[in-house]
């Protein structure tokens, strides 16, 4: 295995990173005023690095987790306040101060992240804006320690006293944080941010806890801001005032993060440069310093009108590229061992009743899923099929009745915990996340990443593209099959497939049927298939339950069910009564 392969997905990051480090080193090491970081620009370069780090903190929340927070600068301020206090009252080493500052903001990250659990989207923006106003207000009465005297407290570490060296330090911290974020963003916790942004239900369906994912995102963002707060102290040599952390600063930051797309290292560096160099150029030429604000405001609007990726989405290393790996080979066939209907039930749904206000969506529904079989649930539109999945998988909690998996009652468990305990589902509307690769999406739904050969087999079996293919480049039908594959990756005991063939062509649909038939033998798991495609259901299921208006109207083998006149009437309406010539009323009684 050569180096490029071992680096895997990370290799595309190397180009921008090496480029950045070389340019920065050249700037620092060049003699006298020759380097672009000559003494006059060194302070600007420090600002660029620190602002870049703050932009990374705001950009990861908006760009990766889809959380609009207007208090990024407040986290920086809180950490800077703690650092200022430490500089005045304790003489600890610089790096210890930075560390304490970063740790000190974690409780605030948890507080705001905890609010984000309920308050998503724009409500979160409102809360964080009022939080930012509150923090600055409190700073007004609790001034920054040491800001009232003119003492110059050397807050920089030994060896990094000069502006050049301090820039180097800040820049290295920025690069390290950017790479760490990139690394973390490819682990399950980091991938989960994108999942939460895309769909909270699908996140829970993959066995991830939505509250934990959000709190985790805020804590990571707060720590990045906290580190920046520590660097701030050194930048301004210990004299900071609350005016630096006005809510407007957070708004500028969010706008610039949106404008460039600062969720990645290269985007953050660009945001930092914009936030430092442009004001400096304006300042030096005697132009108004307010223009950059106006520029970022308009830039953000422009970026949002283009779909929100920001400038950095156009960087060559950020553009999705087709995989160069070979398509995974399909594994050898396994004889689909048809297990006779009527075996011991692994999943037992008893007397399930769901009411939405006055409407009874499901009434006393009983379904048994025997081990290692494929059973089907069919019914006309609005019959209550998806409500059944929602209730059994924990997305509708106020139901009556029992859900028992393997003898274990599930009724008190959350959707996340049901998924973890071996009950997985797919959704009617596609929930694959376009920003991820095929392999990342599959690993999102398993506690530990699948071993490479197992992943290869899974992809091969479903005839999916290679693991490093970006989902944004595959077609919608294949994405749906990918969702089925992902739901099986964790080796669940039962998987609910909610209309997996919706939107597939006839050929793809037949192939999917073949695959579903093999699932029990290959994955040791039962399937409950919900489908409109009656042909598909009849082909793959050993038993079928028919629901209409929330009531089970028929149950049995495909042949029994499909020849049942009541079923035909439910699907085709009253006319069937005369055509078939059966006494449906009598049969119903």
């Amino acid at each position, binding site marked *: 295995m050569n180096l490029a392969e071992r680096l895997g997905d990370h290799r595309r990051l190397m180009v921008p990173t090496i480029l950045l480090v070389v340019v920065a080193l050249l700037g620092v090491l060049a003699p006298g005023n020759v380097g672009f970081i000559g003494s006059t620009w060194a302070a600007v370069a420090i600002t660029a690095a620190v602002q870049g780090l703050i932009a990374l903190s705001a950009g990861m929340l908006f760009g990766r987790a*889809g959380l*609009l927070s*207007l208090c990024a600068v407040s986290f920086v301020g809180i950490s800077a306040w703690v650092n200022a206090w430490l500089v005045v009252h304790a003489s600890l080493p610089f790096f210890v101060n930075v560390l304490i500052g970063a740790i000190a903001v974690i409780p605030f990250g948890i507080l705001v992240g905890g*609010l984000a659990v*309920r*308050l*998503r*989207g*724009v*409500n979160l*923006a*409102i*809360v964080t*804006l*009022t*939080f930012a*106003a*509150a923090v*600055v*207000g*409190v700073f*007004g*009465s*609790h001034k920054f320690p040491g800001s009232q005297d003119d003492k110059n407290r050397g807050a920089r570490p030994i060896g990094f006293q000069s502006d050049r060296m301090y820039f180097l330090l800040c820049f290295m911290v920025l690069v390290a944080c950017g790479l760490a974020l990139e690394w973390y963003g490819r682990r399950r916790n980091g991938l989960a941010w994108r999942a939460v942004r895309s*769909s*909270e*239900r699908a996140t829970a369906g993959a066995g991830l806890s939505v509250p934990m994912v959000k709190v985790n995102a805020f804590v990571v963002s707060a720590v990045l801001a906290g580190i920046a707060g520590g660097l701030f102290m050194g930048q301004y040599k210990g004299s900071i005032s609350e005016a630096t952390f*006005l*809510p*407007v600063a957070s*708004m*500028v930051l*969010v*706008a610039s993060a*949106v404008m460039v797309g600062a969720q990645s290292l290269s985007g953050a560096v660009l945001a930092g440069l914009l936030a430092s160099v442009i004001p400096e150029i304006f300042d030096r030429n005697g132009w*108004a310093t*307010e*223009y*950059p*604000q*106006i520029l*970022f*405001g*308009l*830039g*953000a*609007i422009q970026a*949002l*009108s283009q779909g*929100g990726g920001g400038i950095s989405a156009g960087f060559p290393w950020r553009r999705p590229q087709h995989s160069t790996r070979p398509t995974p080979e399909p594994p050898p066939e396994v004889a689909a061992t048809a297990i006779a209907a009527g075996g011991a039930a692994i999943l037992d749904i008893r007397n399930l009743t769901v009411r939405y206000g006055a409407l009874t969506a499901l009434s006393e529904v009983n379904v048994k899923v025997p081990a290692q079989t494929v059973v089907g649930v069919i019914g006309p539109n609005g019959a209550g099929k*998806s409500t059944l999945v*929602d209730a059994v998988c924990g*997305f509708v909690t106020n139901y009556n009745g029992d859900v028992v998996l393997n003898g274990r009652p599930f009724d008190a468990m959350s959707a996340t915990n049901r998924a973890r305990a071996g009950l997985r589902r797919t*959704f*009617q*509307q596609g929930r694959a996340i376009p920003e991820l690769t095929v392999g990342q999406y599959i690993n999102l739904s398993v506690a530990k990443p699948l071993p490479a050969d197992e992943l290869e087999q899974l992809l091969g079996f479903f005839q999916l593209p290679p693991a490093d293919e970006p989902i944004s480049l595959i077609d919608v039908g294949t994405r749906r099959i990918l969702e089925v594959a992902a739901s099986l990756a964790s080796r669940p005991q039962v998987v609910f497939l909610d209309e997996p063939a919706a939107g597939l062509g006839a050929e793809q649909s037949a192939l999917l049927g073949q695959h579903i038939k093999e699932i029990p033998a290959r994955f040791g798991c039962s399937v409950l298939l919900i489908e409109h495609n009656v042909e598909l259901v009849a082909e793959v299921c050993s038993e079928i339950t028919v629901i209409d208006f929330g009531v089970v109207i028929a149950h049995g083998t495909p042949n029994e069910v499909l020849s049942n006149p009541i079923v035909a009437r439910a699907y085709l309406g009253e006319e069937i009564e005369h055509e078939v010539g059966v006494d449906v009323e009598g049969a119903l009684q």
Partner: protein
Amino acid sequence: MLDLAVAGLAGGGVYALIGVCLVLSFRVGAVINFSQTFSAVLAVYVMSEFIAHGWNQWLAIVAALVMGGFISAVQGWVMSRLFSNASVLVRSTVTIGMALSFFGITTRIFHDTQRLFPRLFSSVKFKIGTVTVTGATIASFLGAIVIALVVWLVLGRTRVGVILRAVSGRPVTAELMGVRTSRYVVFVWTLTGVLTTAAIVITAPSRRSIPNMAFLIVPGLAAAIIGSMRSFLLTVVGGIAIGMIESVAPMWDRGEKLGIGDYRPALSFVMVTLALLWSQRKETWNESR
């Protein structure tokens, strides 16, 4: 204590009025307009320039209202042209960009210098018992209530109200039924622009600086959230409550040194948080199936 509470009515009325406008643009335009006060502040500073040039103050105020309405109308037009299909989050983020731009423009032109703002209704002042009531207090307090009432009546009881609600609920359906959606959106933006400018005009003499006026959006948002972004009545109650608590809060310090007064700026945060947690207590998932 009581006179402090009454003094709080003036600020509370302004918060309530800003809150009512926020609720209106959310209900009709499906956006949280963070830039609402920012564009109004620009209009109010232009007004102060007119007054400095010797204009009659009422003429200057009318000019400010027209300008506030016009700026807001342009924003509404941009919104309906570029972002009519975007999510509430994206649309609201756009208004953050707009807010920043207005903030930059206002600061650039007026440099945050001390300005002369007309003290309206200053001749009106009377006492009820020991409590002094000023004209500004009555104007903002009654203004907020009357406008909330009018807006509530128009939305709930008139044909225009029905159309506006249709535009907010199902813009495409409304369009297909022959409603010129963008026209109504622009109309609502104009209206909220005029009303917010009026609110800022009333409170300008006591706020003085650009950031102080612009960030009236914070208590305004708090009031709107107390009204769940839906109820005009609760928004008014919320805004007035915030104003009164803010005004009375320093009292808490006097007897015992609790130090709560120092944390008065956190009031909006605490109230918004509590109100949102309460109103969203049952919502679990961010989308339907």
